[in-house]
């Protein structure tokens, strides 16, 4: 059974959004369900700090075994940090998706977009 933490928000495309200590800044990664579906992650392509994205823009790709999948930005905003350690150890996405396998931190430009994300119960229902 995939881990769906109760304090996060989710997208239908299996990204999660997690609050950081800084107001308006959220951590983004893919869910435990998504990493399980993909299999062993071998490469993560991430944007640069300062890049700006609108909600559901493609911000990068994740490659697992031989499958490349797009990564979608859950909310609009500016990238303030990316997890550079994934370049050397992409398997962290599998072993600790909500912790050391995080992908980026984004400063939201419109926090009302949080309302469009799925809560943990809704996301659990989606992944059945």
């Amino acid at each position: 059974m995939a881990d769906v933490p109760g304090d996060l928000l989710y997208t239908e495309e299996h990204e999660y959004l997690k609050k950081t200590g800084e107001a308006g800044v959220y951590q983004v990664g893919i869910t435990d369900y998504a990493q399980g579906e993909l299999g062993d992650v071998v490469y993560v392509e991430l944007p640069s700090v300062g890049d700006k994205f609108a909600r559901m823009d493609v911000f990068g790709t994740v490659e697992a075994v031989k499958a490349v999948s797009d990564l979608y930005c859950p909310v609009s905003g500016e990238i303030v940090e990316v997890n550079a350690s994934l370049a050397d150890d992409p398997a962290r996405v599998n072993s600790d998706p909500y912790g050391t396998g995080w992908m980026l931190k984004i400063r939201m430009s419109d926090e009302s977009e949080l309302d469009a994300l799925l809560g943990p119960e809704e996301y659990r229902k989606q992944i059945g």
Partner: protein
Amino acid sequence: MSDWRLIMGPGTTDDDLAAGGALNMAVDEALLRSVERGSRPSLRFYTWSPACLSLGRNQHARGVYDPGRAAAAGIDIVRRPTGGLAVLHDRELTYSVAAPLAPFGGPRAAYAAINRALLEGLREAGIPAEQAAAGRSRGPVRDSAEPCFHAPAPGEVVARGLKLVGSAQRCEHGAFLQHGSILLAGSQSRVGELLGTGTAQPGPTTSITLQDLLGSEPPPAPLIRALGAGFERLFGTRLAPDRLTRDESATVQRLALRYAGGDWTWRR
């Protein structure tokens, strides 16, 4: 599942299988985009002329492969939209599938299902193929000069324990593209001849061809019929011969420019 489209070659004629690398990748991506917009799944068969080295989407190529050596050998280079590692497309048959992900259950399930359909078809053609055993997949792709056919990944199609079909996949917007190379003859070790002088040669490839198995290089037409029958049986579908629509042809023209450009091929 509903009827699938059967597309041959560049999708503009019924019997010409061959096209250049950029056009081949553009047609595959255009078929994926059609499925994303609600079109029926497609199964496509094609070959490559001239011979072409295809690189995985995220594979390092700059400073690894030598475009001068490739040009001198008459081999084109293109970067695929899918993952995985380098494949030399010469004396082989390529298949591609574009379909919605949901009926398959996810990327890995789709990968396994397509491989089962290929197996079904190869056995129909009298080829003793099987699926590679589960195991650890390879490590990070970014520094690897290893060709795709260096080693089978779990679930891939092998014969006598050696890799016969090398496949790769891309997923986006609820649809997937999976394409792969079925080796008819020749040797994938020629990939090593295209490496730059500063790149260490990978070890010997562990691939096998249909010529190795059957004693002679099989013509593509009966093989395509057998593979098609495998897909029809496994997925309970019927393959309907089809060509690209006018919209798809326009998309192909646009995408082919990108695939032919150095910005994409040498992006990493």
